[in-house]
């Protein structure tokens, strides 16, 4: 209080009423691209103003509002209230089908785990892109297993708990075997002889180059 009295004595003009000072602090904090310190506030406001006091009023005014005056280091800024953060996010849910490359790679890993990238490639007959493995890793359906004790000590891939969860399996051993697949008719879906080579191959070649996720 005494400091303010001093200021008032020094000043040729009377300082604006505190309600006006509060408005000034409000406008400055709002428009500034960075948090503003009390010192900077005082420098920018007319002589005789007491930014610290104006801030006390302003902070009180914004208590419980959708935005609050927060202290950042020794500076102040407006921030949206924490309980409003849900409004600052727009959630969009997109469901996409896994690409053929990804589902095949996943199938191979689940049936052959632990399996190296080279082995996956051998089974698929085409190379496996980094993106495909990354996607499966990101989905947390596969993870790295132990390294093979073979030359080069290649890393292996295994399926995860969330993979089992997602596909409703107790363990990877529950996956139906070839015999069961055949019994279920899944292995009989062969294209007629003579037609299977050309289109299959062609399609594969294309996919191979891009290995894009299907939109």
């Amino acid at each position: 209080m005494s400091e303010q009295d001093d200021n008032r004595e020094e000043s040729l003009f009377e300082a604006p009423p505190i309600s006006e000072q509060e408005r000034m602090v409000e406008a400055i904090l709002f428009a500034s691209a960075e948090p503003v310190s009390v010192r900077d506030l005082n420098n920018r406001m007319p002589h005789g103003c007491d930014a610290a006091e104006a801030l006390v009023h302003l902070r009180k005014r914004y208590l419980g509002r959708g935005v609050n005056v927060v202290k950042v280091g020794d500076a102040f800024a407006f921030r949206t209230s924490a309980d409003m953060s849900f409004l600052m996010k727009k959630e969009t849910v997109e469901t996409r089908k896994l690409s053929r490359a990804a589902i095949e790679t996943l199938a191979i890993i689940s049936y052959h785990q632990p399996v190296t990238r080279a082995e996956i490639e051998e089974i698929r007959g085409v190379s496996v892109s980094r993106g495909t493995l990354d996607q499966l890793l990101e989905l947390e359906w596969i993870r790295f297993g132990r390294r093979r004790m073979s030359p080069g000590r290649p890393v292996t891939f295994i399926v995860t708990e969330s993979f089992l969860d997602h596909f409703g399996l107790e363990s990877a051993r529950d996956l139906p075997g070839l015999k069961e697949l055949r019994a279920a008719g899944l292995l009989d879906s062969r294209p007629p002889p003579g037609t299977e080579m050309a289109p299959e191959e062609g399609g594969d070649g294309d996919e191979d180059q891009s290995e894009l996720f299907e939109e």
Partner: protein
Amino acid sequence: MSSAMGEFSEESPVLGSDVSVADRIAAEALIVDVDGYEGPLDVLLTLSRTQKVDLRKISVLHLAQQYLLFIEQAKSLRIELAADYLVMAAWLTFLKSRLLLPPDPAEDGPSGEELAAHLAFQLERLQAMREAAAKLMARDRLGRDIFARGIPEHVSTIRNVTYSASLMDLMQAYARLRTKDEFRPYVMERESVLTLEQALERMRGLVGYAVEWTDISSYLPDGWGSDPAKRRSATAATFAASLELAKEGKVEIHQSETFAPILLRKRDAP
């Protein structure tokens, strides 16, 4: 009408030997600045200010006269004039004659008064737009007088991409892969493919002992009989090798009926 001309020569800032120094300076500024004009209409508007009247009551005849003198001055000072200044000069000369001469009943088209009124309207409209522009620019402007939030908080878009894949997709994919294997004679997985050359080499070494009719399936290499893919490849290669040997006259082949075992035995050299 003639009085307008007289009035003009007294007041004109652009012409006359008896004009004041200030007027002369103003006139020269006008001319030297011709590049600064935004076209003939702008010049006319500037000239009209010397009349110090409401634009609606302006003497267009007087104005036309001023403009034509302005053009002459500019020409005498060898100032390059854009074509549209000259077009306006020609049009104003035409307008002047229409305003000065009694209307010719035989002539079509708008009267001099109509044309003059329109020119006055154009000038008034341009003036109004200039004033409006000034008012607009004088408003409290965003980023100059009024400010937006300095630290905008961006709305983060959280894209939840869920990938759909069912157990069926997984099994179908696997089945597809395995099925493809069985049908891929071109497959480069060498260990499950027996080539004709390999089979032939093997057969050449063995047929010497085939004195009796023997099922060619017994010639499959060890370990190639159980895996269907390998068995298929080995059988095909062995059969092809047998045909090759038969062609060479080294063996005989016999099959008693369709799908019966294919038998082979050594053929004695002729």
